[in-house]
């Protein structure tokens, strides 16, 4: 259990990387609290796995320093860092039994056999693997194997952190849900620092206290699920979190007003825009109202997704999604109204503050 400090970490896979774009991980400067449950969320290739492997020591960063509880571990090999990691695809030791697979990390560290047995049985019970403890790992199904990998990650009681690299990819949806709640429960009872890499927002939002959103090798926002939803600090976060994603459209700002295609939209305050660059207005589909007398829109289609309806429309030539309750009527001459408090203004994709 440890506080993890990432001090100006950057990494490039090619040694002669110079331009900023050559870096798989541009610059990460952040501290992860002891006992936190973090999710690293982002699309494939955004540097999540790279960051994870830097923490576990499988990769040495090209720049920066990493510390556990204030002790520099940048030059320590993986074995000396006392980290557990679960990989995307199952890694099991084929010739061993399920029991021995779980005991392996403990026996390698010369834990007394009595303790090994106690701990392994605990984890076997927790992951529901007891019935196959004596079976050889070869010939099990992919999700059984992944459960073994997962259990092997949990078996050591004294690790600094447990890292999960999209561990539930190969597991079927029902089991996925169960395992995820078990992990969450384990986090509460054990107090391990856990880092969970995923590209699935539901997974990230249900597992973590703090979600770290990454995009093109950078951390774009760290926050609670609510913060990410209500105040995305980058248009990518708005787009990536929520379904459908945030509506983003180019706009001009005039004092406490935003102008899109001649329509004036009231804001909660005056955005601190310096004037240069690309200005955009972002609003979640959940905060757009459909009512008579609103701004004119053209509705393309209405999708019924059960408890809600998604209206796909165009506003001043830009696509606009609106989420309505299932039983809400859509007036024939309906227009859109944006809730001022839910509007964010973005300069060059980054959210800008507002003066009240």
């Amino acid at each position, binding site marked *: 259990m440890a506080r993890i400090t990432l001090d100006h970490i950057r990494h490039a896979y090619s040694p002669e990387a110079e331009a900023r774009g050559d870096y798989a991980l541009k610059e990460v400067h952040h501290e992860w609290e002891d006992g936190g449950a973090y999710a690293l969320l982002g699309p494939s290739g955004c540097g999540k796995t790279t960051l994870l492997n830097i923490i576990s020591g499988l990769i040495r960063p090209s720049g920066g320093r990493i510390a556990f509880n204030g002790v520099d571990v940048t030059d320590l090999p*993986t*074995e000396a860092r006392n980290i557990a990691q679960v990989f995307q695809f199952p890694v099991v*030791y*084929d010739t*061993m039994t399920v029991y021995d697979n779980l005991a*392996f990390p403990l026996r390698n560290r010369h834990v007394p056999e009595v303790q090994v047995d106690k701990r392994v049985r605990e984890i076997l019970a927790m992951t529901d693997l007891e019935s196959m403890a004596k079976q050889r790992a070869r010939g099990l199904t992919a999700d059984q194997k992944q459960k073994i990998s997962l259990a*092997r*990650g949990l078996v050591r009681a004294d690790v600094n952190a447990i890292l999960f690299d999209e561990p539930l990819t190969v597991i079927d949806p029902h089991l996925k849900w169960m395992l995820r709640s078990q992990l969450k429960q384990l986090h509460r009872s054990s107090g391990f620092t856990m880092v969970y890499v995923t590209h699935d927002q539901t997974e990230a939002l249900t597992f973590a206290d703090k979600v770290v959103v990454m995009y093109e090798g950078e951390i774009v926002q760290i926050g609670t699920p609510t913060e990410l939803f209500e105040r995305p600090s980058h248009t990518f976060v708005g787009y990536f979190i929520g379904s459908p994603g945030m509506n983003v459209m180019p706009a001009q700002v005039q004092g406490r007003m935003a102008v899109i295609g001649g329509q004036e939209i009231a804001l909660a305050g005056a955005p601190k825009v310096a004037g240069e660059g690309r200005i955009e207005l972002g609003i979640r589909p959940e905060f757009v109202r459909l009512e008579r007398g609103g701004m004119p829109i053209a509705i393309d289609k209405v999708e019924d997704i059960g408890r809600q309806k998604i209206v796909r429309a165009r506003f001043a030539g830009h696509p606009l999604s609106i989420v309505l309750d299932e039983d809400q009527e859509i007036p024939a001459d309906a227009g859109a109204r944006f809730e001022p408090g839910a509007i964010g203004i973005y300069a060059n994709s980054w959210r800008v503050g507002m003066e009240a």
Partner: protein
Amino acid sequence: MEKTWNNKAWFMVLPVLVLVAFSAVIPLMTVVNYSVQDTFGNNEFFWNGTQWFTDLLRSQRFWDSLSRNLIFSAVILALEIPLGILIALNMPKKGAWVSVCLVLMALPLLIPWNVVGTIWQIFGRTDIGLFGYVANALGFDYNYVQDPVDAWLTVIIMDVWHWTSLVVLLCYASLVSIPDAYYQAAKIDGASRLAVFRYIQLPKMRRVLTIAILLRFMDSFMIYTEPFVVTGGGPGNSTTFLSIDLVKMALGQFDLGPAAAMSIVYFLIILLFSWVFYTVMTATDAQN
């Protein structure tokens, strides 16, 4: 459904039957034929029953060359398999050196058997051979023409030089197919180098090792050309393996009957070993 019988269908199989007859059955039956008959020339043959077989199994000469051959195969396996694994483990997995290593490894396999024999015949000579000359200059009393131990040493080193590559290439192929995640997981789990070998690499190599052991056993048990070129089976009979003995008997002494009997026994031994080997390997496979 009613079955229709059409005997003309036999004609369809005929070409294959003819081919197999000429390529396998007739030559084999010729040997069987010789093994139960005796001749005094003039193309006259007499029925001899199992006489050649009983003679063979009672002759010291046969048992000597058989045990020499078994010892040779055992030594070859004991050297080439561990050495092959060791080299494969230490070969680079990526980068420019991969192709260099692979070509170096493949080279000995591309050299014809009798050329390999000639190379070592000259290499080991005490007068002009680099190895033989240097060994003697350094004070070792090395002479494969006169000393049976030196002759064995030469033949064994030659075979290791020629065939270890095969084991290396087979093992290497299975080693590079292990995903990186396995090594990463092993690091996370704190596994020692030995544990990585024992629990990750060896299980992965098990199948190809089965093939490697079988191939190397068969090849070394049937070895002929290389030792024949280097030592000619000598000094004395010290490097006369089964196949060399067989050729001596068949072509040197023109004892066709005993040679035919020996051929059949030789063939049966190889068949027996292959069967035992195969059964044991598949049985352990099924166990897992």
